[in-house]
């Protein structure tokens, strides 16, 4: 099978200067493979390392990979800089997007889109065609047009920040998207809109890894597999029905089986 992502025995630590050796192990042997075109979901208790995994995959400088490998589109992902990963088609919708004071959202989005287009050998979008596209996509997401004029995420509500992430994703057209709790804190209408945003990207060549706590998202986005991440490892893989079971029973049954 043609894999977009193959993670093998991945061990990674967060750089923590308060510790003696400066490293706090978080990921402790993650194995996860995603075939091209599939949607996989990660669920797991708080603090189990879900966001850490998404940071390691996107190349966050606070994390150090201590062993293991990650292959993305047959390339060694771990050797690439964060912007190279983005250019290669990897997108992360952040759990908590940062604010960029003074940086106009439309200008930021256009710079991002054109950086990625340039790296992919595509022509850059001029301001007019970009704005036309951005306004249309913003409208699809019920994202008020004035959000494009504001500074990136500054003073955005939680829900607006999440929508801004999805807007960026729609503009950047990644081939692989990681969504880190993009559905958390959204009301039911916003949830549907965000899910539609993700679904509009669906194609045989688009794959995704969706981190969520809520079964309700999966009413809209149909996953191929659900993985349970706990204590830095994938401890269980199941089909779409697993989320219903977790919703009822919680993680206790699965955690009992994990050895430290």
């Amino acid at each position, binding site marked *: 099978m043609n894999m977009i992502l193959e993670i093998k025995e991945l061990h990674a630590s967060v750089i923590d200067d308060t510790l003696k050796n400066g490293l706090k192990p978080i990921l402790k042997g993650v194995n996860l493979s995603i075939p091209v075109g599939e949607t996989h979901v990660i669920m797991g208790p708080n603090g189990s390392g879900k966001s850490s995994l998404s940071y390691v995959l*996107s*190349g*966050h*400088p*606070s994390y150090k990979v201590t062993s293991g490998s990650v292959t993305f589109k047959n390339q060694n992902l771990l050797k690439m*800089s*964060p*912007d190279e*990963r*983005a*250019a290669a088609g990897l*997108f*992360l919708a*952040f759990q908590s*997007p*940062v604010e*960029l*004071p*003074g*940086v*106009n959202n439309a*200008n*930021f989005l256009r*710079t*991002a*889109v054109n*950086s*990625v287009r340039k*790296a992919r050998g595509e022509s850059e979008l001029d301001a007019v065609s970009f704005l036309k596209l951005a306004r249309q996509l913003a409208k699809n997401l019920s994202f008020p047009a004035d959000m494009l004029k504001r*500074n990136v995420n500054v003073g955005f509500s939680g829900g607006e920040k999440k929508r801004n992430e999805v807007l*960026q994703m729609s503009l*950047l057209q990644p081939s692989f998207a990681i969504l880190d709790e993009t559905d958390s804190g959204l009301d039911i209408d916003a949830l549907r809109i965000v899910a539609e945003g993700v679904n509009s990207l669906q194609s045989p060549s688009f794959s995704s890894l969706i981190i969520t706590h809520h079964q309700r998202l999966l009413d809209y986005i149909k996953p191929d597999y659900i993985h349970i991440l706990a204590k830095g490892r994938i401890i269980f893989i199941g089909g779409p029905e697993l989320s219903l079971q977790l919703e009822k029973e919680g993680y206790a049954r699965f955690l009992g089986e994990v050895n430290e």
Partner: protein
Amino acid sequence: MNKPVQNQALLKQLKIDAYKWGFETDIEMDILPKGLNEDIIRSISARKSEPNWMLEWRLKSYRLWLTMEPPQWGKVAHPEIDYQDLHYYAAPKKIKGPKSLDEVDPELLKTYAKLGISLREQEILAGVEKTENKDVVPVAIDAVFDSVSIATTFKVTLAKAGVVFCSISEAIQNYPEMIQKYLGSVVPQGDNYYAALNSAVFTDGSFVYIPKGVKCPMELSTYFRINAKNTGQFERTLIIADDRATVSYLEGCTAPQRDENQLHAAVVELVAMEDTFIKYSTVQNWYPGDKDGNGGIYNFVTKRGACRGARSRISWTQVETGSAITWKYPSCILQGESSIGEFYSVAVTNGHQQADTGTKMIHIGANTRSTILAKTISAGNSDSTYRGLVRMLPNARNSRNFTECDSLLIGNHCGAHTVPYIESKNSTAKIEHEATTSKISEEQLFYCQQRGLTKEAAIGLIVNGFCKDVLKELPMEFAVEAQQLLQISLEGSVG
């Protein structure tokens, strides 16, 4: 494209230790021997065939300078300058004062072309481009190469409007009454150590006079270039806006890359009569020295504007990215009733640069207003200080000042300091001061990189966002250049 620095593709490739403007022009020079004394001053004056009053003025300045000490209070440290080890006059040999472009040495024109200012193009494109592209405002340029003004473009168009734009040497010959009346009237000869030195040995610079009721039809610009080795550059600029006149003036600078430090001590005087507006913009990009802090320009500049008439307005906008050491405080003397002084500044330091800049707003008249917006960006091992004085004198009834100083730090080894001095002798005057310090966080850079921006582009974007309120004060074409320059000067600032 009428831009003082216009080769954007090349600009982009620049790195801090690969200063693009660091080339040297091989040209025959007329250089006076090193050293400073009355004979040298007499020789400078003689070379320029100056009238006797000018020579006397220089000698008086020199004698004042001898009694003075260099200022010690700036937060900059540098080895003592040996004033006897410098040349005070260096001029390309074939040039004797300003001429038409046809007589200018082609080597010189090539130098300016390399710098991205084609003097000839300026003239040629003016006619053509105006019809093709209505947005392009022509810029008349006075280019100063080492000590001598090389060419002033667009003379004819300006003359039609009654605007005088020429080198200060020419003005001394052709407009002696104005020079005698205004030179040193804003920055007196003995004002400070560097101003006294400049008054004694200044070699060239620009002179502008906008007559009553005239809105200058184009941006005026001077381009300074230090080329000769061990040469101090001491230009002198005098701009006079008569009643109801308006003018926008741009200044840009570069210098070759050298191991030793070069000295630049300029004086700029602005005189604004009733209902005038003088906008003075600077994009300063002198060679900052190499990565280890060797070489670079020492930039000690006195810039001051006098709002003499009622409702006159002077606006200083500066983007400072170069120089090893910058010591500079463009100021406004708000004498005319309801006059306005503005200072918009972006100062970037990287590597081992040191900058001590700021402004002085002296409120003398009633209902005067001043606005100070100072943005400081420090990266690498650099150190930057904003020093601002706001003074309300007893007659400054209902006058106001608003000051905002924002510092942005990049990395952990740089410093930024804000030193406000506030003096009020009138209880109806209002002074407001706001200051912030922020840092570009790793999370912000990572967020941008995840969206496909390189780290450099990310810093550029955040820095431009931080500075945009100042950049928007620059004339449009300059603003674009300034943005690029900011990005270039910060390249390599984060590991």
